[in-house]
C-alpha cells in the first residue's frame, strides 16, 4: 500500500513538473504546479510529517500559488512566450542536467543506504510546536522580522509613486 501510494504520488508530481516544462501557457503552468505541490504534500504525509503536509497544501498550494495566479492575471500576456529558437541551448541544458543528476547521486550516495526507520516517535503538531518554541525559538522570532521586511518591501515596490 505504501509503495503504491508513493509511486502514484511520485508519478503525479514528476509528470506535472514535466508538463510545466513543456507547456507554454503560464496559467496552466501554475495549475500544474499546484498539482505537484499537492502530491508532494501527500508524500510528506507518507513520511510521518502530517503537520508539514497540511502546511504544504494550505500555504504552498493555497496561498503562494494564488499569489502567482493573481500576478499572472495582472500581467496578462495574451500570446504565449514561444520557446527558444536556438536548439543548442536545449541540448546544452539537457546535457548539463544529466551531469547534475550524476553529481547529486554521487554526493548523496552515502545517504541512499540509510535505513528507512519504521515510524517517527513524535510527529504530532504538539511535538512540533514544543520543539519550535523551545529549541528553535530565536529562528522563529527572526522569521517574523523577515516576513515584516518582505511585506513592507513588496508594498513599497509596487506602490505607485505620487507625481511630484
Amino acid at each position: 500500500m505504501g509503495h503504491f501510494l508513493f509511486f502514484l504520488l511520485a508519478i503525479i508530481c514528476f509528470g506535472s513538473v514535466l508538463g510545466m516544462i513543456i507547456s507554454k501557457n503560464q496559467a496552466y503552468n501554475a495549475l500544474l504546479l499546484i498539482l505537484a505541490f499537492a502530491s508532494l504534500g501527500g508524500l510528506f504525509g507518507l513520511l510521518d510529517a502530517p503537520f508539514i503536509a497540511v502546511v504544504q497544501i494550505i500555504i504552498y498550494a493555497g496561498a503562494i500559488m494564488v499569489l502567482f495566479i493573481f500576478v499572472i492575471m495582472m500581467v496578462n500576456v495574451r500570446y504565449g512566450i514561444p520557446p527558444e529558437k536556438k536548439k543548442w541551448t536545449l541540448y546544452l541544458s539537457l546535457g548539463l542536467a544529466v551531469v547534475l543528476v550524476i553529481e547529486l547521486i554521487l554526493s548523496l550516495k552515502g545517504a541512499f543506504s540509510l535505513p528507512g526507520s519504521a515510524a517517527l516517535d513524535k510527529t504530532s503538531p504538539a511535538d512540533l510546536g514544543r520543539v519550535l518554541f523551545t529549541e528553535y525559538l530565536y529562528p522563529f522570532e527572526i522569521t517574523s522580522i523577515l516576513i515584516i521586511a518582505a511585506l513592507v518591501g513588496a508594498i513599497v515596490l509596487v506602490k505607485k509613486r505620487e507625481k511630484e
Partner: protein
Amino acid sequence: MIPVSYFLVLSILLFVMGTIAFLIKRDLITMFMAVEVMLNAANLAFIALAKSANSIDGQIIVFFIITVAAAEATVGLAIILLIFRQKKTIKSEDIKLMKG
C-alpha cells in the same frame, strides 16, 4: 517500508527538473515557479532524511523553508509586477539593463 533512497531519487529528479525549467523557460513567472520546485525538492530530501534519522528537526527546517519561500514569493512577484509596469514585458531576454 519505503526506503529513503526512493524519496532522495525523486528529490534529485525534481531539483534537476526545476533547474532545467529555470534555464530553458523564458518568462519570468515560470522561471520563478521553477525556483519553487527546487525549494520543494530540498524540502522532500529534508523530510525523508528526518524520518530516517528519527528526528523532528528536519521538519522544523522545512517549516522555516516554507516561510522563507512565502516571503520570497511576495517580493519576487512584486519585482516582476514592477518590471512589467516599466517595460511592458516579462520575457527574460528583453530585460538586459540594470537601470530602467
